[in-house]
């Protein structure tokens, strides 16, 4: 069902606006809307205006807190699967001490991060210097030595194509008293040092340049290359220790991460309030708020509003006004809303196929998975997850869906006599030498035709239910003749055609029903066309839809196919597991194959059942009546990430 919505108009004194919004957030059932939809918006706009709210600062604060949470997260203990979010009261919204603590932690985290970044860049600088000294490691002359009384001493770098032996020979041939000391070479460059008389400088450099050599300077370095390299290494060690220290500091701060997370959620709630605030129209002293409220929450809102000095009124939505859609169904149907929501929310003026959809989904999911063993796993697994895991509202609904699906699977598994495939008779035969009969009502393996007919029967009921819903929608809108022509005549024709398969007088009745139905359709289906020829043509053409209904019905054969797939794979797993025979080793192999095989089969076929049960709803069922396009109801509420905010004790 689509929940009834009412529009709330609220006028109050400007000073009260923040506290009203904050209270509405705590009540959690009001969607503050844009006043632009009001009929007298133009006049209001001349009297009132939007007050800018302080969103920017809150956003800044939020992103700082987020960075701190990210930085601290590696140091926090891993959370278990069943960890619950901490519960806090709404008084956290005004907790100044908390914000101060969080701010303090943020500052410390930012400092530590800054220091780590700084140290890392220093380390890379030292590493660079160390690497640049590497080629001259074996020279034991101090780097600051550039000349003696008579000689120059220089470090050289050559391209890898240079021939240093040739250079040495050239220097000797030229009779220069120069000594070239070849050092290491790498892929790109060759390194050397040279010492020569000061007077020979031009000549020596002519030869060096001819091999492409350039001089390398070591700025402000003292001592031999080896000494400097050792120095670099010890400095890197020192920096690494400091990083370690900063990491330890972060790790210490991680103990207080809970405060930062709570602060994050508090700021997030404040930001949501501020965003809602920006939708208020204000004068200097008053404000006006418009909002959507589900009709059954009206009491709750009113009992709060009477305690304030605000003037308020509720009214029904105008005929053209599109209100947000909230699905409201009984506890058993509620989990199946997930399927509808994944497809589309219904148009607010249309209908939500609540229990009808739920019932068919329940049946289809079970009959497609159809193994009582797997059903038990889904059912109890879902119950445990619901009890122990801290799930978001959507996750909770989905888990309930799985639990209910498990229930249906147990039922259909029992009908098919399938408990982990044929595990029970197989185990009995191989390990105990006994023939065990598992009771069953239907055997899809040996009697597939019966199950196929059952599938088609379920499909026909499903399709007819969808047509009934379409008729209901048309009747609600007062289009009685449309319901008669577009649904009633089709019922007549389709039921008539089905009766043709029946024996005796029923077939005769079927013949006349289908003839009347077909003639009726030919006469009515073109009724929106302008002239008689087009009407007749459209009418005749509409009979072609019989093939559409036929293919819809055939589509339900997947119920048999998916059920068989589960059963056969399960049996194959059991057969493969028992191949080694009756022995200790054989039994161990069986356990391993059983666990692995059935886990895989459950995963594949549960996914398949989910997908194909959904498809039958989306295409065959929704396709006949569903009108999408609803906008989800998004109330202002404590939409938190790390904590669970509530003032209730439960």
């Amino acid at each position: 069902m689509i929940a009834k919505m009412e529009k709330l108009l609220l006028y109050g004194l400007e000073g009260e606006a923040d506290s009203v919004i904050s209270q509405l957030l705590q009540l959690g059932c009001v969607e503050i809307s844009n006043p632009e939809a009001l009929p007298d918006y133009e006049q209001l706009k001349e009297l009132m205006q939007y007050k800018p709210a302080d969103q920017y600062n809150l956003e800044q604060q939020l992103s700082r807190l987020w960075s701190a949470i990210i930085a601290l997260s590696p140091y926090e203990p891993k959370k278990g699967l069943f960890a619950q979010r901490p519960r806090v009261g709404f008084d956290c919204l005004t907790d100044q001490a908390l914000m101060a603590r969080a701010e303090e932690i943020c500052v410390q985290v930012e400092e530590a991060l800054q220091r780590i970044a700084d140290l890392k860049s220093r380390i890379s600088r030292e590493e660079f210097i160390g690497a640049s000294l590497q080629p001259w490691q074996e020279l034991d002359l101090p780097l600051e030595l550039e000349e003696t009384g008579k000689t120059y001493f220089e470090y050289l770098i050559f391209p890898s194509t240079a021939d240093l032996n040739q250079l040495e020979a050239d220097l000797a041939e030229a009779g220069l008293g120069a000594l070239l000391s070849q050092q290491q070479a790498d892929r790109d460059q060759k390194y050397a040092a040279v010492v020569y008389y000061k007077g020979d400088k031009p000549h020596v450099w002519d030869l060096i340049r001819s091999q492409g050599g350039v001089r390398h300077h070591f700025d402000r370095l003292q001592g031999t290359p080896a000494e400097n390299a050792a120095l670099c290494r010890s400095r890197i060690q020192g920096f690494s220790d400091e990083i370690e220290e900063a990491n330890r500091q972060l790790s210490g701060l991680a103990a207080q991460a809970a405060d930062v997370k709570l602060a994050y959620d508090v700021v997030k709630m404040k930001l949501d309030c501020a965003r809602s605030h920006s939708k208020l129209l204000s004068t200097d002293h008053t404000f006006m708020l418009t909002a959507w409220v589900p009709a059954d929450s009206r009491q709750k809102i009113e009992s709060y509003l009477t305690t304030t000095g605000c003037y308020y009124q509720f009214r029904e939505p105008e005929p053209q006004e599109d209100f947000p859609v909230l699905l409201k169904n009984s506890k058993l149907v509620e989990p199946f809303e997930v399927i509808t929501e994944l497809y589309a929310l219904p148009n607010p003026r249309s209908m939500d196929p609540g229990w009808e959809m739920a019932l068919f989904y329940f049946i289809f999911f079970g009959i497609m998975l159809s193994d009582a063993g797997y059903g038990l796993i889904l059912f109890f697994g879902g119950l445990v997850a619901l009890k122990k895991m801290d799930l978001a509202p959507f996750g909770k609904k989905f888990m309930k869906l799985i639990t209910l699906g498990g229930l249906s699977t147990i039922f259909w598994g029992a009908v098919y006599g399938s408990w982990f495939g044929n595990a029970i008779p197989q185990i009995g035969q191989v390990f105990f030498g006994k023939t065990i009969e598992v009771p069953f009502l239907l055997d899809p393996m040996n009697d597939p035709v019966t199950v196929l007919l059952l599938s088609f029967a379920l499909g026909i009921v499903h399709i007819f239910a969808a047509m009934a819903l379409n008729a209901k929608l048309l009747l609600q809108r007062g289009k009685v003749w449309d319901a008669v022509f577009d649904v009633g005549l089709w019922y007549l024709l389709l039921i008539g055609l089905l009766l043709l398969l029946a024996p005796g007088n029923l077939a005769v009745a079927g013949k006349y029903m289908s003839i009347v139905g077909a003639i009726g359709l030919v006469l009515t289906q073109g009724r929106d066309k302008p002239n008689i020829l087009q009407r007749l043509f459209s009418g005749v053409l509409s009979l072609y839809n019989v093939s559409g209904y036929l293919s819809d019905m055939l589509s339900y054969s997947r119920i048999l196919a998916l059920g068989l797939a589960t059963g056969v794979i399960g049996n194959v797993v059991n057969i493969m597991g028992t191949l080694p025979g009756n022995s200790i080793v054989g039994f161990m192999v069986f356990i391993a194959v059983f666990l692995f095989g059935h886990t895989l089969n459950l995963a594949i076929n549960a996914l398949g059942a989910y997908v194909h049960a959904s498809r039958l709803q989306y295409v065959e069922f929704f396709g006949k009546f569903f009108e999408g396009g609803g906008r989800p109801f998004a109330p202002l509420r404590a939409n938190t990430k790390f904590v669970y905010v509530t003032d209730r004790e439960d």
Partner: protein
Amino acid sequence: MEIGFSAVFANGNFLAYLGVAVAVFLSSIGSARGVGIVGEAASGLLSENPDLFGQVVVLQALPGTQGIYGFLIGVMIMLRTGMMGGAVELSLGSGAYILAAALPIGIVGLFSAIYQGRVAAAGISLIAKKPDEIAKGIVMAAMVETYAILAFLISMLLVLNIPV
């Protein structure tokens, strides 16, 4: 001993084994390609948004079912004819019947898995832009699967009624 062409190929046992092979390898090739196509598309999306893995993997699993259907038909043929037990004695007619029964899931499985993979890959680009619309991507891919299911049903009904 001279073994003639007809002794090897026009032989009931050979045709039955060929049926198992056709059902399994054609549909598995299709599934492998289909799942591969989706996987390639998915990796690109995951590099930008790793959180979508859970949704993406559902789409990737969809074209994998044809391989399973083919495998099932293969196993069912083996069970029906007693290949699991070892010695098989099938007449030429039975063998040919089995081969024919294996063809629907083999051939339809091959092509439908590839086309389904392409639709699912398009679904990946759909959820790259609108992660909430995953259900529509899944339904589009499941539309293609309908024909694999029909072929599987036919193959299966034929196999279950093998005159051995």
